[in-house]
């Protein structure tokens, strides 16, 4: 074993070990093709969806004209695919460990599973932030391109653009963190991914249009309102465009999503994460 002899690293302090764990999870995320595939999909869907919406702006069943605050807002805050796919990314980060049986290697390196879940959640939040911001950047590019093509002036101030950008960043980060927790609770990747789409596209639209007072507190809706989308603006089907109600303030929506993440993580840490890896 002479060829293998290296100085044995001294044991790091606990907080440094956790930082290392987060870096490991970030490196996993960056070295997984699925991450880039999902990001490309979310950007592609945003371009397609927003170009379609922009082309219909000012028409009978389309959004308001792009030379109005409302019309341009609808387009530039329409990068919701980045938020939905951030949640999917989170699911894949955690459930992928069981799909590919890599949980064994992960827990051999870090036997304290609660810390692994925390590290995955933080790494996921970083990835989700990129998805949120990426979606926003593309949505802005599409919206502003159509606005410029029509020769309109930009009806939205720089402050609002910044706020919505921050909202996309926070919303993407927290939806991805929630996705990590969901993927830890529901180890079947297929079921969890389908669940994310059904929840965000069907259930929230349905519940939000039937029980309007509840709508601002639904997680996907809260994330999209953080990102500047009006209530109902991110819904699909019958719930779309039903805009009555007041969205949660930025801090309240953030606190709600953080609370959902923490409660979910606590439940996962005490149940599914403890299960035997056989």
């Amino acid at each position, binding site marked *: *074993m002479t*060829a*293998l*002899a290296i100085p044995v690293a001294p044991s790091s302090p606990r907080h440094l070990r956790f930082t290392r*764990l987060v870096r490991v999870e970030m490196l996993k995320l960056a070295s*997984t093709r699925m991450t880039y595939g999902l990001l490309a999909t979310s950007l592609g869907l945003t371009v397609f969806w927003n170009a379609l919406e922009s082309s219909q702006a000012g028409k009978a069943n389309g959004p308001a004209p792009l030379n109005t605050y409302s019309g341009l807002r609808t387009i530039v805050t329409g990068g919701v695919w980045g938020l939905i796919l951030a949640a999917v990314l989170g699911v894949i980060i955690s459930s992928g460990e069981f799909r590919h049986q890599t949980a064994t290697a992960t*827990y*051999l390196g870090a036997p304290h599973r609660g810390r692994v879940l925390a590290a995955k959640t933080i790494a996921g939040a970083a990835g989700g932030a990129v998805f949120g911001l990426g979606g926003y950047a593309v949505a802005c590019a599409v919206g502003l391109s159509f606005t410029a093509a029509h020769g309109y002036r930009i009806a939205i101030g720089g402050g609002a653009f910044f706020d919505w950008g921050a909202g996309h960043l926070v919303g993407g980060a927290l939806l991805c963190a929630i996705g990590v927790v969901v993927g830890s609770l529901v180890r079947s990747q297929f079921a969890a991914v389908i669940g994310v789409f059904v929840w965000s596209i069907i259930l929230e639209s349905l519940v939000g249009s039937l029980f309007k007072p509840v709508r601002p507190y639904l997680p996907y809706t809260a994330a999209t309102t953080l990102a500047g989308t009006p209530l109902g603006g991110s819904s699909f089907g019958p719930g779309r465009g039903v805009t009555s109600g007041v969205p949660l303030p930025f801090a309240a929506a953030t606190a709600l999503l953080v609370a959902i993440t923490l409660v979910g993580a606590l439940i996962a840490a005490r149940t599914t994460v403890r299960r*035997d890896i056989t």
Partner: protein
Amino acid sequence: MATIQVRGLVKRFGAVTAVDGLSFNVQPGTVTGFLGPNGAGKTTTLRMLLGLVAPSAGTAEIDGRAYRDLPEPLHAVGAVLEAASFYPGRTARAHLRIQALAAEADPSRVDDVLELVGLADAGDRRIGGFSLGMRQRLGLATAVIADPEVLILDEPANGLDPEGVRWLRGLLRGFAAEGGTVLVSSHLLAEVAQTVDAVVIIDHGRLVAQGPVAELTASGAGLEDVFFQLTQEASR
């Protein structure tokens, strides 16, 4: 160097008792074979030793500590449990970089261990395209990346060609010669007989025999004959 100590280990899965009061020791500087028929409880025992499965009773310790209490587990123990447990879209080099970071090992170790296991030319290939033998070699590279004191290997010769089996034998013997502790489960008794110094034989989750191969085969019978005799007696 580290000793493996298993004391009164029990694992029940519902009504099934997979491991039933198992106790044994593995000493440093030896390669110890962990033998038993299919379903004897070998893999479950190894997973309890590595903190992946929670024991119903008893303790499994490495150098006096449960695996989860080891401050830097990858520096203490290298393990190979299943050949399929890699993300298929990742390259071997990317996989090992992650493991090196997890172990806080020098990144230059990645190339060292790829060379060691004979995968230097395949480092930039995706693992999904690897043969079973290549996956076993990558698993071994993963296990030794932090230069651990203990190796715990579950059927590491699966999928290896004769040259690979011979290489593995040399690796394990060399590791033990430098004072390392090796516990290796296998059903290839002829191969085990050539590699190990001692054996732990279990059946139905219970210890059947433990000791140096030389003692167990002192009567002149081969290890294979001794194994079948002991496990058949235990089954009666």
